[in-house]
């Protein structure tokens, strides 16, 4: 059972404090903050204890979400609860940041009051909570032109009319105001996280994909929704369906509300989505990608005359030509004693700089079309350069996002709401792949 729940800003300001059982003092908040800021690297910081009080915290949106307990509770339950609290706060307030929590503190207190009683979790389902939550969310964002320029986050290339405005996904789910209340929208996102290790000889050493299908629903009443996946979708190594390119995952699990009676034959998920964000399905694929990894790197590292290190990188994007990678950044660790950097990049929108703190070159490429190849030449000044210093260059790590692309090939064939909703309703399907960890050894 939970004794207290509190939310702190990264600077230690008390944003929310709720005491459920009266077992511990309010001092606990400052004790926690002192402990968490005094941590050195090797202590496990998720669970900390002070006397007989245990603190469990998660970090989301730059804030500390903390629960304290005096019993030996299940860590999974409490971590999951704090994550859920953060997700609900995001659902109700629109976005998750210090400002939105500050402005909506009355609403969050209301949520906490209904979610937990006397330290016992009562309910966290949006469907039930919405009957009890009375406070209206205050959104902080005034209209700005910047929002419109940001539109391309999930669909950069499409015509403006087909793209869901990004602001739509960051508004509160319960809005009584007229200009937003009329919008009945539902978003289905297929989000994949890819983690890859490529060896120095170019061989793919590890490739894992973790994916999920998320639904964000703004419909006030729920009707049954049917989501059709690729018919060739197969689970596990043995099962193969269809004759074309199979879409295969190793394991998948579903939200308990998903009905699977048509899944085996037609690959259809049936669900009555409740308001807010839910993860309907999670799946993993390890060690076998159906397509080539999105990026290949051809590096050359050599010692120039004097104390200069030459790093020549050729980076190829192996996506299909109509896809584009966004916000690509390449981090190349360099020897500890590196002083300065001069670079030759192939186009002016790219940037590269030497981060002395991390001892690495950061090369960022805002847009990288599929099939293209970019190159960069870095000259690093390293006093006392020896051949052993070359060992310190690498491994290169990359981060990027691939809109409209899934690595497993999972697609949503259709999205039907039945019975057809009156006055409805915009349905959006979005795909995105994020890099969880993309490492290329040199």
């Amino acid at each position, binding site marked *: 059972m939970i004794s207290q729940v509190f939310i702190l800003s990264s600077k230690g300001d*008390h944003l929310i404090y709720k005491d459920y059982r009266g077992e511990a003092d309010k001092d606990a908040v400052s004790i926690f903050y002192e402990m968490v800021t005094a941590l050195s690297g090797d202590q496990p910081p998720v669970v900390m204890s002070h006397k007989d009080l245990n603190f469990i915290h998660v*970090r989301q949106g730059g804030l500390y979400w903390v629960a304290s307990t005096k019993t030996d509770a299940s860590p999974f339950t409490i971590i999951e609860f704090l994550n859920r609290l953060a997700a609900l706060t995001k659902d109700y307030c629109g976005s998750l940041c210090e400002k939105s929590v500050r402005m909506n503190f009355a609403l969050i207190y209301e949520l906490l009051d209904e979610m937990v009683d006397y330290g016992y979790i009562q309910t966290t389902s949006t469907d039930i909570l919405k009957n009890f939550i009375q406070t209206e969310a205050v959104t902080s964002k005034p209209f700005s032109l910047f929002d419109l320029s940001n539109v391309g986050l999930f669909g950069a290339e499409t015509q403006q009319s087909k793209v869901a405005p990004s602001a739509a996904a960051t508004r509160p789910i319960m809005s009584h105001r007229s200009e937003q209340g009329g919008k009945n929208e539902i978003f289905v996102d297929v989000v994949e996280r890819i983690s890859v290790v490529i060896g120095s000889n170019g061989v793919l050493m590890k490739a894992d994909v973790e994916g999920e299908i998320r639904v964000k629903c703004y419909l006030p009443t729920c009707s049954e929704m049917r989501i059709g996946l690729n018919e060739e979708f197969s689970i596990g190594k043995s099962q193969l369906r269809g004759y074309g390119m199979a879409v295969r995952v190793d394991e998948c699990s579903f939200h308990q509300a998903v009905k699977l009676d048509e899944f085996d034959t037609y690959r259809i998920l049936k669900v009555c989505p409740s308001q807010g964000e839910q993860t309907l399905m999670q799946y993993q694929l390890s060690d076998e990608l159906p397509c080539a990894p999105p990026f290949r790197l051809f590096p050359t590292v050599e010692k120039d005359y004097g104390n200069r290190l030459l790093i020549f990188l050729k980076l190829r994007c192996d996506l299909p030509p109509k896809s584009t990678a966004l916000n690509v950044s390449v981090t190349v660790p360099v020897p500890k004693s590196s002083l300065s950097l001069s670079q030759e990049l192939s186009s002016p929108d790219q940037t590269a700089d030497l981060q002395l703190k991390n001892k690495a070159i950061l090369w960022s490429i805002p847009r990288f079309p599929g099939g293209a190849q970019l190159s960069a030449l870095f000259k690093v000044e390293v006093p006392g350069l020896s051949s052993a210093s070359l060992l310190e260059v690498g491994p290169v790590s990359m981060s990027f996002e691939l809109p409209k692309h899934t690595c497993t090939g999972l697609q949503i064939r259709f999205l039907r709401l039945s019975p057809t909703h009156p006055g409805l309703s915009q349905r959006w399907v979005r795909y995105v792949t994020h890099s969880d960890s993309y490492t290329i050894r040199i």
Partner: protein
Amino acid sequence: MPYFGSEETVKDLKRALSNPNVQADRLRYRNYITRVIRSMTQGLDVSSLFMEMVKASATVDIVQKKLVYLYMVTYAGHKPDLALLAINTLRKDCADPNPMVRGLALRNMCNLRMPGITEYIQQPILSGLRDKASYVRRVAVLGCAKMHSLQPNTEIDPSVVNELYALLRDPDPVVMVNCLRALEEILRDEGGVVINKPIAHHLLNRLKDLDSWAQSEVLRLLLRYRPRSDDELFDILSLLDGFLSSAHAPVMAATLRLFLHLAAAHPAVQADALSRARGPLLAVCGSASRELRFAGLSHVQQVLRSQPAQYCSHYKRFFCSYSEPGYIRLRKMEILVELVNDENVVLILEELKSYCTDVSTDLAQAAIAAIGRIGRTYTEKCLDILTGLLALKQEHITSAVVQTFRDLVWFCPQSTGPVCKAVEGCDETPQDDEGKQALLWLLGAHGELISSAPYLLEGFIDGLKVEISSAVKMELLTSTLKLFLSRPAETQDMLGRLLHYCIEDEADMNVRDRAGLYYRLLQSGPDRTRQILLGPNSDPSMTVLTGRPEELVSVWASSFNTLGSLCGTGAGPENLPAEDSAHQVHAAEEAELGFGPAEQNLNTEPEEPLSDAAAAELDLTAGPPISHEAFERLWLDLQVVHQQVLEVRRPPEPPETLQAAFLLVKIQTLAFSRADAALWKAYVYSRAGGTLLLAELLQGAPEEPESEGMLLVSIKQQPENQSAVRNFISVLKRVLQTLSSNTS
């Protein structure tokens, strides 16, 4: 935290709240109340507004009511007399036609923690228990627990307890779970809520209707239930089966814990449950939430204590990602070390090697230490990597490598030669205390193998005046003295200088005493000094190969899914099991040796002589290492199945070469006697075709004078398989012959 002008703020608020104009305007009124709560959260003392807030509670605006209740619950303890004024409003609300208002009022009334409140809340709670709205019943049930905690020393009201037990059959699942929670608290002194057979089965049957939070809580309470018979046990387990692969991590973990607990007497069932939960647990380890990932990793570590082999093929899941925080990466490295086997060792080492140049020194050093731990089994590969790291000439890396070398030499004496060579080739000396001590220990213990040892020590002695750490000075004294015993001519002069400085000029009492002790020791002659100072230079227990015994599931099952498993740094290989559980561990180990699942499968397969498949099965395989004690026990229990004089002499190689050669052909070495012993013995073992082979090599056995100098091999086997023995002997002979011919 006090703010400047806080009194002004409170005064302003007070004035505004009592202003009738504000009170008339609903929005403005609520706005001011919001400001009070905001100040309260920030730590401002606004208790002086209590009177005004009580007045504000009499409103129809539910949002305002909630805010005022929050305020009252916080300050009721400070102002009990004023809080009583609010009771009337609250009691009136408890009879409101709107169930939400009723529930809200009842919940907050029970939350007022002040003396004397119980007489006011008893009646509303009792009527709340029979309310037709489940929302109010939920609140009322927990209200019973709150009421009990307000007067802990009074007698428990049996009618309330009975009513709560009856409410376990409530149609609303949350009411049912709240009843369990309330009973658990009220009856804590009597051991908590009683879980008898009807209740347990009732809970199990309703498990599907509950939400995931309630499920994990009920599963935790069911730990207390003991099934009467095996039939009942298996009925329960099959009912719980689906929850084992739940997508909700809390439910999965709670179910697994219950499985392990209920099936404590059925190790096969436990193993099966662990392997079925592997997928979900691995999924948690890759979850998007870092904290959940960390919890998953910590629990994988626990499972590994019993079943290291289960996760070996999934080692790539534990490769670190550069964006992960340090605490996750450290856990992952600890796990990677446990997962090493013959197939994946190269890839794991390559991965760990890439962490060694990490920006964070902590992570780099941890990676080096991890390589060192793998080096206890795969010495050669790791020594290459570690020696290569010295070339980087970075202080923190050199220091960590030298410390790893020290540990490696201690655990695997066969690595002494290459280590000494590497230390000699390294011209960078570590600058931190730990690294210095490690280097000094190596110089002292193996100074005769490092030709530059006296010069290195001299460097330390010259810098003695600026050395701060007394631990380093003590280590310096010991190693100089040890080096003096092995290389007196080169060291005598500097030892004299060192002792003189430490006895005359040193301020630290411990160092001075130690120097005095050594001085007097030297006076009693070098032989006496040698006898006292020179202990073993390697791990004195006879095991050459250190393997970690597999623990019983029950050793850790009780801490599974508790906070404790996340706090500790996990059991490293150094944490050996306590003495009293040692015999259990050995029992488990023996079971594993003889009747492990893999071996069993092979045994049941029909023998197919002369077929390729059967021949392949007879190839030697390494398998998990066996501890010294387990080997000894087996050796004593079994009969010799085969004895033969090999037509070869003992190769003159040092034992470490012999061991490396054996390892190449998958024969593992347990122990050697010293090279100069009159009766030379070696114990080795291997696995083939589903059997375990134990062998003793003996040279100079007195009863066989005609085979003077030849090796006598005795083999014991479990279970018997003659063709495996023949194969083993031919491999053994081939190795020994190759070694002898190389040297002759």
